[in-house]
């Protein structure tokens, strides 16, 4: 399928949605949003891209296999869960670093952000692995 308008829109759409999902991820701690929903939003962008360009192109963009991405996501969750133990708290307790940064001013960084990023990557990887498998079974690309 060669439709230049659709292809341009799909590329643009993926970028907009990627920025949007990161925004959702970052605002998630205190406002609606968070890792899970951000992951789903990012995955919809990829799915739209995949419907137009085929699943091989998704695979080239995300570089690693989706399995690896899920593993990385779980790894980040694991790190966020265990890190407080070494600081002498119960597991999963939030550790916060409050610092002054140029441009953005005061920013709270903590283990919940790592946890959410892990969820974000894991959920995106999971949905993409399902979609890519379905596309391969349906022979979407050919």
């Amino acid at each position: 399928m060669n439709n230049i308008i659709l292809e341009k829109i799909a590329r643009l759409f993926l970028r907009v949605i990627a920025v949007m999902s990161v925004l959702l991820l970052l605002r998630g701690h205190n406002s609606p949003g968070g890792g899970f929903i951000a992951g789903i939003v990012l995955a919809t962008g990829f799915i739209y891209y995949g419907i137009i360009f085929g699943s091989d192109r998704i695979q080239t963009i995300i570089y690693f296999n989706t399995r690896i991405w899920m593993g990385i996501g779980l790894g980040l969750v694991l790190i966020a869960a265990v890190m407080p133990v070494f600081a002498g708290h119960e597991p999963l307790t939030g550790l916060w670093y409050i610092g002054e940064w140029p441009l953005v001013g005061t920013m709270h960084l903590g283990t919940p952000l790592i946890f959410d990023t892990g969820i974000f990557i894991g959920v995106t990887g999971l949905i993409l692995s399902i979609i890519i498998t379905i596309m391969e079974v349906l022979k979407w690309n050919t």
Partner: protein
Amino acid sequence: MILFALLLIPFSFLMLSLLIKKAGIKQRLALLFATFNFLWALALVPAVKFREIIVVQMGSWSAPYGISLVADRFSVLMLVVAAFVFFLTTIYSTQSVDKARRKNGHFFFSFGILMGVNGSFMAGDLFNLYVWFEVMLMSSFILVSLGGERQQLEGSVKYLILNLISSLFFVAGIGLLYGKLGSLNLADLSLKMASASDNLALLNPALILIFVGFSIKGALFPFFFWLPASYHTPPPAVTALFAGLLTKVGIYSLIRFYTLFLYYDHGFWNPVVLWAGGLSMVIGVIAASSQYDFRKILSFHIISQVGYVVVALGFFTVAGLTAALFFLVHNMLAKTNAFLVAGWVHRERGTLNLKVLGDLFNKSPIWGILFFISAFSLAGLPPLSGFFGKYLVLKAGIEADQVFITLVALFVGFFTLFSMVKIWMEVFWKKAPENIAQLAPVELKPANWMLFSSVVMALAIVAMGLWAAPIVEYCQLAAEDLLTPSKYIDYVLGYH
């Protein structure tokens, strides 16, 4: 952290097996993590002796609001035995499960089950119990259907649908209970129920829904249909794992639930539990005696054995609960080992139909003896663990003045013996039938690791019979803890 590690170990394995591609390395990692999990669970035994009830509040949120992991003596007992069973079945499945299945995530999903089982044994609140049940259910569903044989898919559809119904009941009950009492923490709920003691009938709809959910999970009469319909379809190593872990989690939750909530309305619940247990006992054993498939007989026996535990719970004395715990442990070991032997028979002959099998004792006396040990332990012959299990149940029954149900239990014991003798005669003792075309003998690699895990399990069964006293003593302490829920409440809510 000490409890959290038991969730962390399977979780790390899941993470690593996603990142690593090579099947050989994954298998070694699986063995390593299973060993580690077992050792960690063992380390909890002295810890619980010292601290009585270990409580960990996730994320430092205190008890009624946060998520608590709780392990008293009962939980630790179950964790240790489950870890032991898991360790041995993992070793066993390196040789028993075929290569394609091992490559496509057999270990991945069995660790998913381990994570669910560990989580539900430690869950301190009702909703997390539900979540861990789901983790377990999803992994076990994939394990049942992994491989995609026709028979497997048929079994897994029944398994999935009936278990989803059980989850539906369970979560609906949780919703109602939360609406009425406004809490999900087990200890907090129990406390609130104690103060609402004149309106307990209002809670019964919720409690009945949850009870039905647990009964389906634990395969009690009349909700056991999914078990014999699905357990004979996956590879034998998977069945052994399921037999050792899955139904027992349902029974664990039932015991926990009964000792924390249901006993407030003892007059209503005690007959329900006794009848459910008694009927499971009888119907399981009678249904088993009409089957002609090795694994189907054993599957029906799971129902009957679970009935013993529930009946012993229904006596609701220290002796009764001691018997229930001892019997649960015995059953996890003996049942798993019986399925392990079934796995060997399946590997040798490619079938588990009793009519076709025969003469296997001559082929390998060791496996014959291993089956003898586990089968006659299930039937309750004296030096083995089953004898003490049954003896304790019967003794507790007579002491609790439940003579009728005790006599039923005794009578069920004879039928169990009958079924076990039937398998023994048909599979190991009789001459191989001549008029049925035997499969050409296949050259198989020696099954050393399968033999190893079965031997260890059999030794554990014998040891549990010979050194029953310390285990009974431990079970008695656990039972005393279970019968004083105020202790549990104090520890979890931090009054202690």
